[in-house]
């Protein structure tokens, strides 16, 4: 059984932190994973994505085949749609509401959300606002991870341990803020969608 997750965003939005959390948690859980990422020029404010595959056995491809992602987790709504061909018909779209405006031809926002809402399984949340409420505006990525955690085949314990490991060097206060952001995202999702239907 393989779970395929595409992380989508713009260079600098914290995709690699989410990816590293999932990798570390998968290791802690005794699972296998492959996780591809983008380095180089695109990291300069360009579109970036990471393919994360978690399984209980060996995984072949580093890339998720089109039509086989269980979830796209987007830091940014248009970037979430960029990878739509990868999503299974019943796959989940989970995205932050906030557009990242560094291009002149950014599309009409309403049209973006219309497409997202047309999918049977979606969750749109203002992760930046929730992150701000818990006191760390930079932790929007952890809010999103928390919201998505219901669909990730890893124990919550392992995810929390991974967050602690990854932020260890930044001290207890930053760890606590990130854990709060994770928890807030998780709660928000519980209150707004019913994952058991998927």
């Amino acid at each position, binding site marked *: 059984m393989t779970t395929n997750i595409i992380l989508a965003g713009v260079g600098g939005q914290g995709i690699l932190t989410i990816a590293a959390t999932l990798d*570390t948690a998968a290791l802690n859980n005794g699972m296998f*994973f*492959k996780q591809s990422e983008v380095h180089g*020029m695109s990291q300069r404010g360009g579109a970036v994505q990471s393919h994360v595959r978690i399984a209980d056995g060996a995984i072949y491809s580093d*890339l998720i085949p089109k039509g086989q992602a269980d979830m796209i987790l987007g830091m940014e709504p248009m970037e979430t749609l960029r990878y739509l061909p990868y999503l299974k018909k019943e796959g989940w779209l989970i995205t932050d509401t906030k557009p990242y405006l560094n291009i002149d031809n950014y*599309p*009409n926002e309403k*049209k973006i959300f219309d497409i997202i809402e047309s999918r049977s399984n979606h969750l749109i949340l203002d992760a930046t606002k929730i992150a701000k409420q818990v006191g760390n505006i930079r932790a929007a990525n952890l809010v999103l991870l928390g919201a998505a955690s219901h669909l990730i085949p890893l124990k919550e314990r392992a995810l929390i341990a991974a967050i602690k490991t990854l932020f260890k060097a930044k001290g207890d206060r930053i760890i606590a803020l990130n854990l709060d952001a994770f928890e807030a995202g998780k709660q928000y999702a519980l209150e707004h969608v019913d994952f058991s239907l998927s």
Partner: protein
Amino acid sequence: MRNIVLGDEAVAQGALDAGISGVYAYPGTPSTEITEYIIRKKKNESLNIHAAWSTNEKTALEAALGMSYAGKRAMAVMKHVGLNVAMDAFMNMAISGINGGLVVVVADDPSMHSSQNEQDSRYLADFAKIPIIEPSNQQEAYDGIRHAFKISEKHKLPVLLRLVTRLAHSRSLVTFHKPNKQKKLKFPKDIKRFQLVPARAKPQFDLLVKKQTVIRECAEDSPFNKLVIGTDKSMGIIASGLAYNYLMENFQEGCPYSVLKISQYLLPRKQIKYLFDNSDRILVLEDGYPFIEEKLADFFREDSKVIGRLSGHLNRTGELNPNIVAKALGIEQDFDEEAPKLVAGRPPKLCDGCGHLDTFNVLNEIKKDFGDKQIFGDIGCYALGALSPYHTISTLIDMGASITMAKGAAEAGVHPSIAMIGDSTFTHSGMTGLLDCINDKTPITIIINDNSTVGMTGGQESAALAKIKGICIGMGVDPEHLKVIKPLSKYHDENVVTIRKELNYKGVSVIIPQRACVRLPSEKKKEIRKILEAQSE
């Protein structure tokens, strides 16, 4: 114990555990993280090895050969186009052979994610007549480089380890094994083979040709090549490197066809012969150029049993993926090919506050006088100057070509002829071009963007740090026509005047816009400022 590592890092740890005494490299996506990992380890664990950036790939490879000559294991690391720069050394060390194990790690970039071409390094290893290891996953990258050092010493030849972007930049779990000790200093028994005068080179080349049989047999017996016999004889499949994963992704429960996985070359003739004799058709899957397919296909395609990229069953260019392979296998798939139409492109941009932006603004104002076709660009973040919204540079070919192309254009009668190059690119491959300009008194204006780091690959140490002025003057640039300017918007008008004035000079002018890369940590910027201040005193 399983460790989380990038493909690049698996190679790095594998090389350390193979007992290398040194890594020599020039940064280039997607190979950079290999050397970064070893530099970091050396610093954190006080390892007794050489780990530092070289000025270019040729100096790197030659230094690695020197270390090998002295009996120790050495690794040279570069991206695919870097191997072109190192090619002279690469070809000739195959003739001389090596002493301590020497592995050249080259990361190819099919689909050109971060490169100007997608050349396949397997052709260059084939040209040099040396073995290739092409790992298909992170564990094989770790095990593969250790194996590469072994066969390098067995055949007394350099070995190419070929990576591609998708493996270099993908993380997974890797088990490390017991490390080897470093080798002791030990000269080659026969130093004549390192003296490539014709009389000594000729027998060495004959020897290299003769060795091919043994190298092929070594690949036929290699644990990195695997033939699994299938039940369906209508097709046999050859899959090399990452293509093997894309194949098996489509056959999770096992593949009905016979499959030959190739991760070590020369091509294993024995196994390929079996496939030919026992399959109606042969599908070749490889990430890169159709290297294997070309070797196996019938030239006239009159009796072509072999299909792949050349026959049109797969895309001729660009990387493979599981969907492309599924299509070639005739497996039905259900997905939308394209993202929704409204999704706009989001290309990379220069960072806010980047000094290159200020230089672009100055040049864009100046070029209103003469048009869009006379600023010759180079490789680095400022290559973005070719794109919207900047449209500053008119050409971009290879490392160092800005200066030499501007030179040729000037000599054809183009005036003004302007070159724009970065500090690290200048020391990598621009200095020799500058010397040509000075010797020929070419009327040219060379702009050396000095951000005091290798910016595009993530801020590695620049070989040019605090040396550009000295190099230019030492080579013979008239100090009157060497100007250091500050690329900041508040000096815009002043900088326009300075450059305009130099455009009128009928000789070599060098302008150095100098400001540290905005992405460097502030302590690093302070350190650079101090070094530069001490130099100007």
